[in-house]
């Protein structure tokens, strides 16, 4: 059989392999890239990674920051002590309750408000600003202000309940009500954040899907769960991580409103315990151990969340 003579293909028989090309990134480009990330990398190293590693190192020492005696190496003693103390597990539980309630509460309420204020209502811009305002107020100020809301003697809630003949719960002495108070205050302050992010996401939703759902005669609630909410998934994921991390770090509201009490530790979260042990009880090593435990917990939760998100795709 003779070779076919299709025009343009006469010369395509290879006599030898064509040269293989490899593209290397030039040294110049690599150096430039390094130079560009260096300033940030240095800041991260100095202010984030070095303290983190220092903290982990410190957790293996016994160091009283109020005395002149040098720190002594104690191995895992701090961790063992923490794990064996029943109060630690009570604090973990409180932290979990507070965090779950804060994340769920601020996300559900934020989304509800965003849905409400996404509609063309009169005066919605003013309401939008009002909802966002608490987010920019300092936590300490919010804490002080909310003492006037929750105070069982002269607070707003006491006043409102008194009008219908009810007594105010003892927000400052009952452990459960105290945790409720802290959580509510925190949600109120952070609602603006979830609200604004959800509002932005709602405004970026695809209009055509909405129209298709309308033509498909979708009932309202079903449309929300089957068409709107799935589109908000990336936003929900982003918020669940950021709100979780923020709420795990809440300190100012607790410090102003309850100082971790009543009964010493009823509203103490892990972060507040770190502060208490390190700066009030002067046990820097023990505080560092708790901080390390928290760091690991957050790391695990975040990795799980990211995995879930990836599997979702």
């Amino acid at each position: 059989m003779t070779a076919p003579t299709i025009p343009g293909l006469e010369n395509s028989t290879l006599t030898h392999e064509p040269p293989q090309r490899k593209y290397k990134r030039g040294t110049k480009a690599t150096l430039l890239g390094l130079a560009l990330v260096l300033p940030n990398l240095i800041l991260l190293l100095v202010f984030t990674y070095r303290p983190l590693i220092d903290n982990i190192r410190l957790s293996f020492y016994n160091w009283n920051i109020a005395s002149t005696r040098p720190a002594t190496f104690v191995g895992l003693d701090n961790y063992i002590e923490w794990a064996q103390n029943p109060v630690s597990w009570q604090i973990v539980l409180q932290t979990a309750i507070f965090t779950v309630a804060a994340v769920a509460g601020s996300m559900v309420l934020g989304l509800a408000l965003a849905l409400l204020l996404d509609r063309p209502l009169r005066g919605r811009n003013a309401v939008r600003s009002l909802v966002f305002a608490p987010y920019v107020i300092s936590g300490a100020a919010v804490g002080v202000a909310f003492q006037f809301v929750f105070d069982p003697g002269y607070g707003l809630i006491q006043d409102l309940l008194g009008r219908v003949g009810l007594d105010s719960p003892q927000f400052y002495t009952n452990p459960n009500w105290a945790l409720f108070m802290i959580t509510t205050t925190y949600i109120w302050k952070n609602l603006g954040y979830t609200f604004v992010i959800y509002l932005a996401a709602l405004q970026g939703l695809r209009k055509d899907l909405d129209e298709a759902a309308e033509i498909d005669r979708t009932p309202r609630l079903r449309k929300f769960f089957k068409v709107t909410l799935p589109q908000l998934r990336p936003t929900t994921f982003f918020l669940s991580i950021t709100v979780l991390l923020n709420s795990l770090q809440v300190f100012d509201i607790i410090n102003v409103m309850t100082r971790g009490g009543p009964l010493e530790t009823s509203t103490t979260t892990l972060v507040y315990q770190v502060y208490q042990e390190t700066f009030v009880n002067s046990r820097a090593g023990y505080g560092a151990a708790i901080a390390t435990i928290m760091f690991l917990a957050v790391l695990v939760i975040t990795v799980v969340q990211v995995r879930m998100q990836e599997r979702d795709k």
Partner: protein
Amino acid sequence: MVDVQLQHISRIYDPSRPAAVHRVNIHVRDGEFLTLVGPSGSGKSTCLRMVAGLEPVNEGSVLIGGKDVTELRPRDRDVAMVFQSYALYPNMTARQNMAFALENAGMTKDEINRRVENAAAMLELEPLLDTKPANMSGGQRQRVAMGRAIVREPQVFLMDEPLSNLDARLRVSTRAQIAEMQRKLGVTTIYVTHDQTEAMTMGDRVAVLKDGILQQVDEPMHLYRHPGNTFVAGFIGSPSMALIEQVPVIPGSVTTAQIAPGIEVPIPQEFVGKVEDQVIVGVRPEHWDIEDDGVPVDVTHVEQLGAESFAYVRPAGELPGTLRTGSLAIRLLGKHEIEAGMRISIAPTRCTFFDAETEINFEYL
């Protein structure tokens, strides 16, 4: 089955500016496939959306099956729509997308399955039923969007440029598929497109819109042969009909239009009473002959399309009239020796005459 009536409907966004759709009046017959065609911004999609109920109607009425639906919500009109973007729910598989509206209607599982399987078979979607839109090609998404409309068994199909995101080959095959399917199902269909080939090949009738105003509603071939005005004449047909303006009319025993010195074309007897001193003459690319004693023109370039070819030419000398587009197209039949840069002579074999003032075809005056 039902008919759809657009009774003088208008869409006015801003009263100080021309309406996006101005008093459009179309009667789409029962089971008919009507294409709405026009350049972008002509209001064709707005018209369709007004029928769907997605766009408010500021004037006039929309009737579906004789029932006034102008103020009904889209969900109450029993129409199914195929969107340009397909608007498939991204979190659902093809099957779920198609079943969604049926579930909303509270149908039984068996009935839903039956309809989805039927539509999937018709559109060759079976292997894709459990795939999500993100993992489909454009053509596959398009078919799922069609399937979603079909399973509804609605009174009316509304399609908003459903093929515009497909590549040229797929567009041609899908075009035929949709037209065939519509004939099989017999559902009254309004189909919006900017592509005049789609409009001509798919529709029982074609409605041409320009700047929100209806220009002509007609059967495809009649539209092509007897355009109502110069806009329709230029818009329908590719390459466009050449329009020569300000052509002097020379009275005589036979009244003629002088398109070039020495080239006079007779004006049909029945128009003679209507013409004044000038007319617009339109000539389609296939209605030019290459003749030695024709109008001398310079060939600027030649398009070889395989089965046919077109030469684009400019007049070599002064003409009594002016050519609207600057150059004109001539279909070349087997005359492959013609190349760019040559000078040839051409003469029209068939002309359409338009009133110089109103630009309306004299047939309709």
